[in-house]
């Protein structure tokens, strides 16, 4: 359209004239605005429709209908990817917390740390502590429908102890020499050396003897059956309707949802896509106190600032002692876990009950002056520089390193923090023991021997390189000591050694804080790394 204003102009100008009008035509302005508005409107409409479409797929309530306490589904959040479903091979804590619901052993651990009969109805230990005899429960059915027989028990224990292959899968059972059927529904376990403390390790799973690959098809006797495992997503268990214990479990389905980190899991807790979350940070727990039940219990963890006894300057016991006085445990616990932790001073947590040496409490007070004096005596009047290697995937240890570095700077020790990933930590610190100091939380079975065996000088897991021949001598006496009271005295003595030599800085047992949805009851916190879903039910 040749505009009237431009007609009379010379041709070159005409072009220019029209292009100006083309760009700035008044009609265009309104059309332009309309265009913008309509596009935005369409976008909003589309977005709203799509989100309305997604409404039916949002979370429906997982509670059973009619207010019945039986039934329903629960989602529990875990932050470690499970790797192994074979109950004898799995050693990592993250696997065992799930497997506790699928498999059972002759005895079971209770929330108070006792070991009670499970698949065995009774047991006796011979006077010379060389023979354990178990009466096997009848009427127990495996998840595949087969009935559990004493042959299955023999098979399972032999497999766990590695009787055929020579390699014990459960290393604590390596002392077993033979397992045999000694009568109707009776199994006898014969050891190669007296050991009165083997009972806690008979939680080893009893599995059917004709199944070959347990990683693919985990079949046990527990309250829940394995349904599926989706990598990086979830492990789903369903109710075992043929469970031998009557009245439990309540739930139809349990989903262990794998979340990568604490913050994501926390958001899922708040949005309701997770019902239970254990090992919660105390500050996060305080944020949701009004919407959730917050339960806590002792974890039987030993949070340790580990000093490599073979690396200078930590090879000098005086230096290690100085550091024990330089650390303010109260402040550390307050800053790390908001006070939700118990201070410890030697290698065992008070969760272990009578085995814990309570006389060592406060043997190290916070005394920086004394620390400085001890350092001077050891030849470090100006302090020294050192490194602490922490696993970066555990925020608790990274935080602890920061606080400890600050506390040590007050006595002249310049501690620099080296953060490495988990695989590197396992390789460099734990296996090769190439480190000066590190921070980790030590877990163990609920057995005093398991807690303290790592400090024997030639122990495979003695990554702090503690070497005390007296300690070794006392430790080796325990296994053959028949009298329980005497054994307890020996355990107390071992803890004394660790404190007297300042083997490392043992500073806390952090409490395990669990957030549970208000719709649920029956969750119990265990002092071991398990999630017992058999007693959980909707209100």
């Amino acid at each position: 359209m040749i505009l009237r204003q431009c007609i009379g102009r010379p041709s070159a100008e005409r072009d220019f004239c029209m292009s100006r009008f083309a760009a700035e035509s008044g009609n265009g302005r309104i059309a332009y605005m309309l265009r913008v508005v309509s596009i935005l409107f369409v976008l909003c409409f589309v977005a709203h429709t799509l989100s309305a479409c997604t409404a039916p797929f949002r979370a429906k309530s997982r509670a059973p209908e009619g207010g019945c306490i039986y039934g329903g589904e629960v989602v529990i959040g875990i932050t470690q990817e499970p790797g192994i479903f074979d109950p004898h091979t799995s050693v990592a804590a993250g696997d065992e917390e799930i497997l506790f619901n699928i498999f059972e052993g002759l005895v079971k651990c209770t929330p108070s740390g006792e070991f009670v009969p499970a698949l065995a109805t009774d047991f006796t230990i011979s006077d010379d502590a060389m023979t354990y005899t178990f009466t096997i429960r009848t009427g127990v059915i495996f998840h595949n429908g087969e009935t559990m027989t004493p042959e299955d028990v023999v098979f399972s224990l032999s497999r766990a102890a590695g009787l055929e292959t020579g390699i014990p899968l459960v290393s604590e059972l390596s002392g077993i020499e033979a397992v045999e059927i000694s009568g109707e529904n009776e199994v006898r376990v014969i050891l190669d050396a007296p050991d009165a403390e083997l009972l806690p390790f008979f939680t080893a799973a009893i599995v059917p003897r004709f199944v070959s690959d347990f990683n693919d098809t985990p079949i046990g006797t527990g309250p829940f059956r394995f349904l599926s495992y989706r990598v990086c997503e979830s492990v789903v268990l369903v109710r075992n309707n043929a469970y031998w214990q009557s009245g439990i479990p309540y739930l139809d389905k349990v989903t262990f949802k794998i979340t990568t980190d604490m913050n994501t899991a926390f958001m899922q807790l708040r949005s309701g896509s997770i019902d239970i979350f254990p090992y919660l940070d105390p500050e996060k727990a305080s944020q949701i106190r009004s919407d959730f039940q917050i339960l806590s219990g002792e974890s039987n963890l030993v949070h340790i600032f580990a000093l490599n006894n073979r690396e200078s300057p930590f090879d000098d016991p005086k230096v290690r002692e100085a550091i024990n006085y330089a650390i303010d445990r109260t402040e550390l616990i307050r800053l790390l876990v908001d006070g939700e932790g118990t201070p410890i001073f030697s290698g065992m947590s008070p969760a272990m009950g009578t085995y814990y040496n309570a006389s060592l409490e406060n043997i190290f007070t916070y005394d920086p002056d004394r620390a400085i004096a001890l350092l001077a005596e050891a030849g470090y009047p100006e302090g020294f520089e050192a490194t602490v290697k922490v696993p970066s995937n555990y925020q608790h240890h990274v935080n602890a390193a920061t606080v400890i570095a600050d506390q040590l700077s007050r006595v002249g020790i310049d501690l620099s923090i080296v953060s490495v990933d988990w695989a590197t930590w396992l390789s460099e610190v734990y296996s090769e023991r190439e480190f000066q100091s590190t921070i980790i939380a030590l877990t163990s079975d609920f057995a005093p021997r398991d807690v303290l065996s790592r400090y024997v000088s030639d122990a495979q897991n003695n990554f702090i390189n503690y070497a005390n021949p007296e300690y070794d001598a006392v430790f080796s006496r325990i296994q053959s000591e028949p009298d329980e009271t005497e054994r307890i005295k020996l355990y107390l003595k071992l803890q004394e050694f660790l404190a007297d030599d300042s083997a490392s800085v043992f500073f806390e047992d952090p409490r395990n804080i669990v957030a549970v949805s208000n719709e649920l009851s029956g969750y119990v916190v265990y002092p071991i790394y398990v999630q017992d879903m058999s007693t959980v039910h909707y209100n």
Partner: protein
Amino acid sequence: MNYFLKRTFQLLCTVFLVSLITFAAFYVIPGDPARVILGPEASDGQIDALRVELGLDKPLTTRYFEWIAGAFRGDLGRSLTFRQPVSRLIAQKLPVTLSIAAMSILMTVLVAFPLGIVASGRPGKFLDQLFSVLGHIFFAFPPFVLALLMTLFLGLTLKLFVAGEYISYTDSIPGFIASLFYPSIAVAIPKIAISQKFIRASIIVEKEKDYIRTAKSHGLSDTKVMFRHILPNSLVPIITVFSIIASEILGGILVVEMVFNIPGISRLLITSINARDFPLTEGIVLYLAVMTVIVYFIADILHSLVDPRIRLR
């Protein structure tokens, strides 16, 4: 045909080089997968037994060459951590990442084009400035901040979606698409910001050209001029930008997958690296290399379609 052969050769070279670099990284970095699987409480005997079972007693170089030989046959090996064939694991996670990628790219196209066109209409005026500022802000947001804010405001406060709820495609396809909707938005927003900029700039450059003035002076309406002339001719740099965006999204955006709890390829990759799972890492790296080369290949073809002067060489 020459072109395809050349491209295939380039693909093979890229893939081989990338796998070699991954192998070198594994060689240098400390860490034992058997120890990572069993954890610190395992005894040395248990670790050794597992190492033999997983084939870790063979040196890494041998295992690498075995893996390459297998890869030629289509067998990517078995994951050490998950005891499943690598190809099966990748195939499980692929639909997730690909769906997010497809939805994000679709959103980017649907939103960035109108915004770019509108912004180019009046360069320097209010709307253009507004889009420019907003674009800068959204582009500057780190993806995880965006994802967290979305989860907080849209998810927890406004309850438009359930944070962390992921429905697998094996359970329900519509639910699957629905649960990926908001993560796709989180991925798309920074991409919209950057591509809107490119579209706008490209259109403005094109608009200045003489033939557009001629078209307008001949009476063609603004709409026709835009869609028949300006846009098609300004597509070349836009296709380049989109191919870069696509190759990035196809690898999965890790932080979005983590915050929204989506089990995609990037989460699998991080898990396998942390676990020092050599076959799985090589397998995923292979997938990423192949995907990137394919994306650029498609971009080349599109370039030649849009601009006949560009020949496939």
